């Protein structure tokens, strides 16, 4: 929503400012330039069509600039676009542009009650007025029309995305089937995940708890959801070993899900009574206050192991350094590229980017999950292949290959 408002606002601002700039040009020139201005020649080839790949209420216009724009008499300072419902009807101003402009997308609102409403399937007639520094002197173009706007049902500009979605989905489903059929799927070691079991054992021996930090992600981050799977696994082990578990949460929704996850894990481990609501608690939804509190917990509870999995930002190093100072073993994983270096430097084990997502499949060892992991590898192989082809085609000047990957909007 915020983004949407922002875009709308900035469009309005931009539109408004171009408009006002054009306005200033006209007004000021009128004041300074008293000499008579000759009428400019009109623009040519005015053409309007429905805008592609949208939900209607929008028309795309193009024209050839007036011969007096930047050449000839050099007296064109801008254009105005007018629209009417019939060729001899009342023309309404739709836009103002500086000189040199030769195209415009006339977007109306789709809500009927809006003042900017522009109906679909309605005939419109357009004309473009070439302006001079004298507001009295201008030339209109020939009228173009009728033209209608209408919505498309399918956005062809996004075909590359669709192709990939379908390809990936098919591969995943096929591989999951194959895995279900009993095909043995190899998965390489992930030292960071293997260390988890070891670390829980160590915590049990030391009689100290395990601290699990889900990061600053909300439930809207896939990394956080990936983290639940690992949390579920850790909680189950912890329940079996009867070690303590501390899960301070940053986001209330995240906390809710984490509570469910841990509760389930304790039930699965056959110790539902050992679960306590105090294990998973909310701290605060403010980055550095959260860090301050977790830092305090680390030095006061002295957990044997700290596990950081999910989305992390600037706090990554503060947490990891304090944990190292407290003498805990630290295992981390994040998909936040800027923070991976800090975890790599300060933690004992780090799951780098994609490894975080692979971890859940690795832990589950279910054929379903392994099948999807295999599909990821196929996709990477495809990327490498494409990169080689791209490398070669670029060298022989075949830029067209790259264009295939162009997503229009």
């Amino acid at each position, binding site marked *: *929503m*915020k*983004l*949407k408002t922002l875009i709308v606002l900035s469009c309005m601002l931009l539109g408004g400012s171009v408009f006002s700039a054009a306005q200033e040009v006209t007004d000021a020139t009128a004041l300074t330039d008293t000499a008579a201005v000759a009428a400019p020649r009109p623009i040519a080839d005015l053409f309007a069509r429905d805008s592609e*790949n*949208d*939900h209607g209420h929008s028309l795309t216009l193009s024209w050839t600039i007036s011969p007096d724009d930047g050449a000839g008499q050099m007296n064109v300072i801008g254009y105005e676009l007018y629209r009417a419902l019939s060729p001899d009807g009342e023309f309404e101003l739709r836009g103002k542009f500086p000189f040199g402009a030769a195209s415009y997308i006339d977007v109306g609102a789709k809500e009927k009650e809006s003042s900017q409403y522009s109906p679909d399937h309605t005939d419109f007639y357009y004309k473009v007025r070439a302006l001079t520094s004298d507001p009295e002197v201008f030339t209109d173009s020939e009228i173009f029309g009728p033209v209608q706007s209408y919505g*498309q*049902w*399918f*956005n062809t500009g*996004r075909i590359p*995305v*669709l192709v990939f*979605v379908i390809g*990936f*989905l098919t591969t995943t489903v096929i591989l999951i089937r194959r895995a279900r059929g009993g095909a043995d799927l190899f998965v390489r070691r992930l030292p960071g995940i293997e260390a988890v079991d070891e670390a829980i054992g160590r915590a049990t021996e030391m009689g100290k708890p395990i601290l699990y930090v889900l990061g600053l992600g909300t439930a*809207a981050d*896939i990394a956080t*959801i*990936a983290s*639940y*799977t690992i949390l*579920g696994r850790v909680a189950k082990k912890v329940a079996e070993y009867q070690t303590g578990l501390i899960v301070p949460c940053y*986001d*209330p*929704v995240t*906390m*809710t899900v984490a509570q*469910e*996850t841990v509760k389930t894990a304790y039930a699965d481990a056959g110790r539902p009574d050992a679960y306590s609501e*105090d294990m998973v*608690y*909310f701290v605060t*939804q403010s980055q*550095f206050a959260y*860090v*301050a509190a977790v830092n305090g917990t680390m030095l*006061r509870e002295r957990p044997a192991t700290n596990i950081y999995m999910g989305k992390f930002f*600037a706090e990554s*190093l*503060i947490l*990891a*350094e304090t944990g*190292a100072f407290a003498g805990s073993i630290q295992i981390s994983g994040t*998909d936040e590229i800027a923070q*991976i270096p*800090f975890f*790599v*430097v300060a933690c004992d084990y780090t799951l780098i*980017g*994609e490894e975080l997502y692979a971890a*859940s499949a690795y832990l589950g060892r279910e054929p*379903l*999950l392994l099948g*999807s*992991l295999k*599909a*990821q590898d196929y996709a*990477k192989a495809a990327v490498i292949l494409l990169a080689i082809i791209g490398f070669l085609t670029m060298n022989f000047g075949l830029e067209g290959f790259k264009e295939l990957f162009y997503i229009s909007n």
Partner: protein
Amino acid sequence: MRRTVPLTITFIVGTGLILSVFFPPFETVGEDFSLFFDIIAVFAFFLGGGNLLRVHGTRIQKKRRDWGYSFITVAGFFLMLAAGLFKLWNPGGITADVTAPGSLFQLMYNWVFNPLGATMYALLAFYVASASYRAFRAKNSDATILLVAAFIILLGRTPLGFYATSWIPDSFSLLQIPNLAIWVMTSPNLAGQRAIMIGIALGVVSMSLRLILGVERTHLGVEE
């Protein structure tokens, strides 16, 4: 049943959102859903606030370690909550912007919240140094590469880096440390980032697919 319904909801919502991208009439569904998400998150704040009070209440009640400090948390919470919800000291009254200058809310933000946050953030300057000292050691080939790359960048940002290699002629200026630092940032660094990014994108796509298909379901909790 209690598990089937949630899995079905996830499947329908997920597939619907993916498809909406390709069909212009439904293009804005994603934005609307993100907005809905924000609204639901605010409801969750009440869960969070309630949980916070419960945790600290228990600490005070059971006189757990450091229970006295829990009073401070609770007091700070209620003071700020009152300042924000009732717009205390706000020159514009209840309809004014909550962060209007002069309001207690804004004062607390400027003089308590902000300095505390900024100082926590500033601790990073210290931790960057202690982490460099502890971890940048040539223990093996990987660690050595990490160390050398970091050292080149650090050197490139001090006059030392310039003086150390200023004798290199301009036609070989790539080998001068400040330029080398720029080159490292723009070439190998870019390559590494890109590999990680592609990997992450695939991981996210695959994970989302698993969630939508209901293969991954840990987050949904117990079967009752």
